């Protein structure tokens, strides 16, 4: 990190830095292949996206004919009605999915913490939705939600709660919550795994001491277990939030963003702009904005992780 902040330069100048790099040349050999791959498939695309966001390109990716338009793509985005629709969808989708997945996953981890017969099997079953492909999950749930033959609709009709099966994903008012249910189905196991691992690090002595002092189960959880899990909770919530913010497959396969954009989130909207409507410039501008937002997430993520490392060294 010293290099980045320029401290080395201030102290020793450029030449000592080069000498230091040269002295470590054998170390770089280990990371060189990884860095080379990352440069090609990550650094170059980021650079290119930023460049493209200032251009207008004709359909078909005829890039020689691109026209410089300054920040027009950005102003076009911010002044379009769909931008706010998609942004509010993304916020609802990300917040609801993250919060509920985390709470359900954490609760599962707590309930599975005590040993009982069949715990291992139960845990394995609960993890499966997270392992299977999101494409398979999307088709399974599309079938479950089917407006003529879907099983949930059929149950509602049989119980007399509906006259006919509801249009879960074909109706503007229910599509987003319906997709969030699918997303949570896939994501809560991740929170469960992380929190189970976290729970194993809570010292038993503290819990026993709290019990001796007369704390009930809720108090023990709230004053001992939960504070102890702050780090792992932060990392888990951040990773979930980023994953949800970046979701693509479930909304894309199940509804394609419809009906009337009711389930379009940022990523699906960008994809449609680029590969559906071939508006590469606008899609790139969206990507750059997205990139800036994610850098913010990244800042908190790195801070949470390096918080862990600091504790490591002091321990």
């Amino acid at each position, binding site marked *: 990190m010293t290099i980045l902040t320029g401290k080395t330069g201030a102290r020793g100048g450029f030449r000592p830095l080069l000498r230091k790099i040269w002295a470590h040349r054998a170390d770089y050999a*280990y990371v060189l*292949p990884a*860095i080379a791959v990352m440069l090609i498939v990550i650094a170059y695309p980021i650079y290119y996206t930023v460049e493209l966001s200032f251009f207008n390109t004709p359909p078909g990716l005829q890039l020689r004919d691109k026209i410089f338009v300054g920040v027009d793509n950005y102003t076009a985005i911010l002044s379009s009605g769909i931008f706010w629709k998609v942004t509010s969808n993304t916020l609802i989708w990300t917040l609801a999915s993250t919060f509920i997945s985390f709470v359900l996953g954490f609760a599962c981890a707590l309930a599975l913490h005590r040993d009982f017969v069949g715990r291992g099997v139960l845990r394995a079953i609960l993890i499966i*939705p997270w392992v*299977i492909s999101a494409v398979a999950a999307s088709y399974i749930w599309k079938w479950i939600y089917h407006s003529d033959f879907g099983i949930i609709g059929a149950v509602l009709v049989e119980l007399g709660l509906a006259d006919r099966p509801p249009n879960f994903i074909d109706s503007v008012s229910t599509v987003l919550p319906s997709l969030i249910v699918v997303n949570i189905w896939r994501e809560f196991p991740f929170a469960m795994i992380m929190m189970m691992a976290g729970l194993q690090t809570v010292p038993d002595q503290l819990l026993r001491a709290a019990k001796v002092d007369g704390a009930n*189960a809720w108090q023990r959880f709230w004053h001992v277990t939960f504070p102890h899990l702050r780090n792992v909770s932060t990392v*888990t919530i951040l990773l979930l939030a980023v994953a949800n913010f970046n979701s693509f497959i479930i909304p894309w396969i199940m509804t394609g963003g419809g009906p009337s954009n009711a389930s379009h989130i940022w990523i699906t909207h960008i994809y449609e702009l680029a590969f559906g409507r071939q508006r590469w410039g606008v*899609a790139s501008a969206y990507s750059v904005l997205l990139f800036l937002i994610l850098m913010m997430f990244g800042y908190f993520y790195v801070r949470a992780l390096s918080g862990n490392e600091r504790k490591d060294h002091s321990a």
Partner: protein
Amino acid sequence: MSTPAETAARGQPRRRMRVDGWRWGGRIFLVFMLLYTALPMIWMLLTSIKSGFAAMQFPPQWWPDQPTLASYQKLLDPQNSVGQDFLRFFWNSLFVSTATTVLSVIVAVPAAYAFSRFTFPGRNFLFFAVLLRNMFPAVIFLVPLFILMRAIGLVNTHGSLVLTYLTFGLPLAIWLLKGFYDNIPVQLEQAARIDGATRFQAFILIVMPLSAPGIIATAIYSFIGAWNEYIYAYTFLSKNEQLTLPVGIQRFFSENTTDFPGLMAASFIMSVPVVVLFLVLQRYFVRALTEGAVKH
């Protein structure tokens, strides 16, 4: 005034009931979560053994009255054109996922080791740059990578997938493996060095065998990620014979949306390899995944 014994006698049952309340609450919650998790998968299996006609009834047949494996036979029969396509998708997925896994591990092992052991200038910056990649969705890399792949002639080849799958496989592999190397005592290598091994020999002969569980976990994660990947495959490949399973299944059934038993059977077959792999090796996997995040 009651004696301490009486207080204990009175207090004890109430306390136990409280604990039982939590335990029962937990059990009921777990049953609910089990239903939420398992019912969709059970419904997938039940639909996959129905005939197309039996699947399209209302109210639905909860249990198929004439269970049939016809959908599976159709998908797995190399004589049948549907089976030919499906099996080809399966092998394509297997090939791409295996190649991605092997490459990720080969590139990530030395890098993770260096990040764990060496203090070269720029180490922290590079490591966090690698980590940050996991923040970015495939979609924002898609246009430039598509252009790049077209320029180097990899569009419509599996090479484009293997190369782009490294964008998510590599950062995660490096992160997972670094966690493992951090936990291997550096003294073991120092002992080998004193006995005359070079640093590279110590790495290969001492550290590599000890990190085998980490390498297995990393390999599973890369494999599952590549097996389930959809966006790049959906964008880069257009010829039917190249498609991987997630995209292949979609192309298959977008033409014939009424064949829900076939779709459910295909979803099931696609899920089997990763679920089996995961269940067999989950111990390593879960440890690796959570290692970095739960340290204190």
